[in-house]
């Protein structure tokens, strides 16, 4: 029983990180049909920025803010202006392929700039025993921060003018334009939001995962899976998908054949796409005709 609870908790913690990254992924795909295959690498970039700022003596919170700004500019606005805007008119698939190339660029850029070694990242140590169950503060802080971020995002999307305008733009750009919404600006805000989410994910996952140029591969795959499991067209879905994936992955690795642990999220992904393509929470989409 205690093993069960323990597996569940650590699964939720790692799932919360997937959820953050997947949320950004869904935001982009919803807001601008950008299916970003470099999303995993987008998490590693701000992690390096935080480390760099930190190494210049800035405290971690200030480094985080620096990373937020850099990410918003580079992974948000520049990414949109230089890649998405020119390529999207050629087709969403072309853009996806371009993000695969971007992934190569980012990974090798980080390799050249920062070297192939992994770097340690400051985190929260310690934890507490509840009977036989051990809960570490890092996992707790991840869960809390991720949940807070997602709740805040949902409030922002649902309760504020800008949030509602973003949703309207994503659902029907033409109608939104008629309503006087600046759709282009809303799409830009979506990209900035994604940049903020990956930066937060970087802050949370790096103490566990460390910082290494090719870390984005694994984490990106998990985030895509989480987004699809939860429902591609639903921001809330990504959260459920992330948590579910984290938990299932943990249980599979604990109780299943470990050599095939990476197959579990993939099987889940296949099953969902084939039998419930709208995901757990997603609305059924009109089939492409």
């Amino acid at each position, binding site marked *: 029983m205690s093993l069960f609870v323990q597996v569940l908790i650590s699964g939720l913690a790692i799932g919360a990180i997937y959820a953050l990254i997947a949320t950004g992924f869904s935001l982009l795909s919803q807001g601008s049909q950008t299916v970003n295959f470099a999303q995993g690498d987008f998490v590693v970039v701000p992690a390096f920025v935080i480390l760099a700022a930190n190494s210049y003596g800035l405290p971690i919170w200030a480094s985080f803010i620096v990373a937020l700004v850099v990410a918003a500019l580079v992974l948000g606005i520049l990414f949109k202006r230089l890649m998405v805007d020119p390529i999207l008119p050629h087709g969403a698939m072309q853009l996806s392929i*371009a993000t695969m*190339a971007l992934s190569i660029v980012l990974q*090798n850029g980080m390799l050249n700039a920062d070297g192939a070694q992994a770097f340690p990242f400051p985190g929260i140590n310690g934890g507490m025993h509840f009977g036989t169950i051990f809960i570490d503060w890092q996992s707790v802080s991840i869960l809390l921060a991720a949940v807070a971020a997602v709740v805040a995002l949902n409030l922002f999307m649902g309760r504020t003018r800008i949030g509602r305008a973003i949703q309207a733009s994503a659902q029907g750009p033409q109608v939104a334009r008629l309503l006087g919404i600046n759709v282009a600006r809303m799409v830009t805000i979506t990209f900035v939001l994604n940049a903020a989410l990956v930066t937060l994910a970087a802050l949370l996952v790096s103490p566990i995962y460390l910082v290494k140029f090719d870390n984005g591969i694994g984490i990106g*795959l998990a985030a895509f899976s989480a987004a699809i499991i939860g429902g591609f067209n639903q921001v809330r879905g990504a959260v459920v998908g992330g948590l579910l994936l984290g938990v299932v992955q943990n249980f599979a690795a604990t109780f299943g054949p470990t*050599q*095939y642990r990476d197959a579990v999220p993939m099987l889940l992904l*296949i099953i969902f796409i084939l039998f419930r393509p709208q995901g757990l929470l997603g609305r059924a989409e009109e089939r*492409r005709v």
Partner: protein
Amino acid sequence: MNQPHRVLPLALGLLLVAGLAGSLLQPYEVYLISLWAVYTISALGLNLTLGFAGQISLAQASFVGFGAYATALLLPHGVPFGVTLVIGAAISFILGILLGFPALRVQGHYLAFVTLALATIAFLVFRNESWLTHGTSGIDKIARPFPFTSGVAYMWLCLGSLALVTLGVWWLLRSPWGRAFLALRENPVRAASLGIDVRTYTLLAFAIGAALGGVSGALFAPLGQYIEPSEFALPLSFSLLLMVVVGGSGTFMGPFLGAIVSVALPEVLRSLQDYYLLIYGIIVILLLVFSPDGVVGIIARAVARLRPAAAPVEPTP
């Protein structure tokens, strides 16, 4: 550049030039030309699936793997190379049909993710089922078939195979099947209303593309004479996809040129040492921004500019 009947001589000529050049060059260039031929076969297959039938697949590397493992495992048992190649292609063909089934349900990005997931699982099988595949330690000392044991002879075998595949693809594309694939890509609903069996052609598009992956794998194994699972993991799938896109997806010459860029670029950018992958990525992005129809598009526009009187170049999707 899109119409196979016009560029077939160009493709075959390219092969001949590559072979003749290779015969005069150093073993390294010979190896590169062989590798180019092998990748091109695989990319031609993917181009059928993606470029002509419009079905994205991130599992092409797995089919290269099936072909490579079939050959590497059967050759030591005295099975002739020609037979192992056919077996590898057949296995890939059948598994390609299976891969096609998801495409009947989902399209676009969803299809990309399903094929990516299946490719990941295929890699895990290659790696974990070591009773069959020798797992992570790989299969060593894969013999080249007699009389193609020397580097140059094997290069000719690869080029010859590519020539046959080129002819086959050319034939396929100008046959009613090629027309049906294009209809499938452009407008499946209209295609069905014209009596085109979208379901069967979708499966065939995957199966044929996969079979060519298998052929390329069969040639790949004795080329390097060693294979291991990580060679057939996702990076190869991405790399093959980029070859198709860089060359010009849905064009006949695209895979040839895309594979040249992929194989030759590290060579061209050697002076830049560690930076060439970075630059390769940037080149791909720039191509997608400025020439979505790839290198073929650039060449076609250049040719059109040189010969303004000639028929206008059709746009590629």
